[in-house]
């Protein structure tokens, strides 16, 4: 934990969440506190994974950093500036399908540039380059429904990265994919990220995925009123190969250490949701 703190002060802070509390008004007019007093900093160029049991408010934290929801208390700072409204410097990769079903792959990728005023031809050419970068160069005229889940995630990644966001927010992006596709996507993500390092907040419930990808792993407690209860630096060398690094001894040691903390929270979360979540 000390190591992590030392690292934070070295680089400028891309995201700084300070004593964040996020509450929702429920249908019966009571309030539900999803996250309480959470503080988290992500340095520029740092890959932070946030892990917690199902329903602990990980995505809520991400949405606060994106400006999609306003915290009840606490502050969100983006590169030292308090966030007001949407976070325009961030790219967000959603868990659910977020592509525009009525646009082709190429149009989906190009749209972020087009709405920012880039001439259409130029935006399309750049989109074509991004499509080949994510390995779908020949799929430009396909509509989302004609693609597999993994292919749609690649398009989504290109759609977000083409705008060169300074911060990347990812909400269990590979959650719905099968195990092999997840590994391939993990490697693709690391490859693209290391070519142009940005601050990343990567939410997942999969501890192995978190350790394999991230510089730092943050653990959240079971909700409601979830807190951050652990913060580990992952000193594994880069570049990493997601499948192979899981065979590494250092990986196992870290996994055992973090899982010891996470396990209790997972059991708590499981008990609360009655095992349904």
């Amino acid at each position, binding site marked *: 934990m000390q190591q992590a703190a030392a690292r934070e002060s070295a680089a400028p802070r891309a995201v700084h969440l300070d004593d964040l509390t996020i509450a929702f008004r429920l249908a019966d007019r009571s309030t539900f506190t999803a996250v309480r007093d959470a503080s988290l900093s992500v340095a520029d160029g740092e890959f932070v994974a946030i892990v917690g049991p199902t329903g602990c408010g990980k995505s809520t934290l991400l949405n606060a950093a*994106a400006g*999609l929801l306003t915290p009840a208390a606490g502050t969100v700072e983006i590169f030292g500036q308090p966030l007001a409204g*949407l*976070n*325009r410097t*961030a*790219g*967000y990769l*959603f868990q*659910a*399908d*977020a*592509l*525009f*079903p*009525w*646009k*082709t792959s190429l149009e989906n990728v190009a*749209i*972020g540039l087009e*709405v*920012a005023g880039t001439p259409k031809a130029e935006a399309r050419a750049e989109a074509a380059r991004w499509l080949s970068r994510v390995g779908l160069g020949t799929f430009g005229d396909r*509509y*989302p*429904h004609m693609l597999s889940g993994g292919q749609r995630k690649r398009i989504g990644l290109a*759609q*977000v990265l083409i*705008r060169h966001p300074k911060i990347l927010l990812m909400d269990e992006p590979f959650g719905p994919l099968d195990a092999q596709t997840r590994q391939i996507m993990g490697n693709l993500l690391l490859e693209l990220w290391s070519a142009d390092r940005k601050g990343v907040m990567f939410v997942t419930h999969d501890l192995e995925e978190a350790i394999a990808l991230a510089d730092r792993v943050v653990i959240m407690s079971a909700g409601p009123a979830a807190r951050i209860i652990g913060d580990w630096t992952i000193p594994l060398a880069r570049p990493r190969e997601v499948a192979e690094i899981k065979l590494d001894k250092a990986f196992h040691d870290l996994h055992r250490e973090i899982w010891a903390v996470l396990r209790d929270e997972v059991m708590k979360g499981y008990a609360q949701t009655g095992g349904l979540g």
Partner: protein
Amino acid sequence: MSRLTLLALQILVAVVVIGLWQLLTSVPIFGTVLLPPFFFSRPADVGARIVKWFADGSIWIHLWITLTESVLAFVIGSLGGALVGFWFARKPLIAAVFDPYVKMINALPRVVLAPIFALWLGLGIWSKVALGITLVFFVVFFNVYQGVKEVSPTVLANARMLGMSERQLMRHVYWPSALSWMFSSLHTSVGFAVVGAVVGEYLGSAAGLGYLIQQAEGVFDVAGVFAGMTVLAAFVIVIDVLVSVVERRLLVWRPVAHDARG
């Protein structure tokens, strides 16, 4: 079942029905003709009537009038329904204020409006167009309203995070979503446009397929009634096929062809 067998069976149904009809109206069984031709006509007579209409060209003016009325009702009703649906969906307050009136007018059987339209707009095509509009408008209105309301929240959040302004959201998210709902009801709204035209003609006009049927009925010309109905059915099927072609062109991005008939 192969397509050929299916087609053969489908034709067989028509042959049996028409054959029975011809048989029962012309050959006495136990001394009586079961279906007196005065009330039921005969397929041969109906066919002869249709051939005569097309041969002397008298049918074209009626087809043209009904087509014009249907197209006008469809275009005006769709435009109005789309605009108002879009507007209501984006302004919940306006939608809430008008909600009971929209429900009230939609609950009204539109046929009762036909005499009023005839009174206001005369016996020409516009009273039929108006009747068609009242039918088409609500189909399109409800679909567009739904389409704008039911945009996926994730797609919307994604669009915002990609930097879209309110105007760009309209163009790239709400409008395509609304259009897809509108097109999925295309068969229904085109069908309603034709219904409006024909019912309007039937209730009072000087031309059109509805007029043709009504005139034949007035002089107990049953062959004329059946011939009119046959031409009308063929007319609707041709329009339906055209709509399917348009639909396939416009909704290429859709996973499956939705059939939102009825």
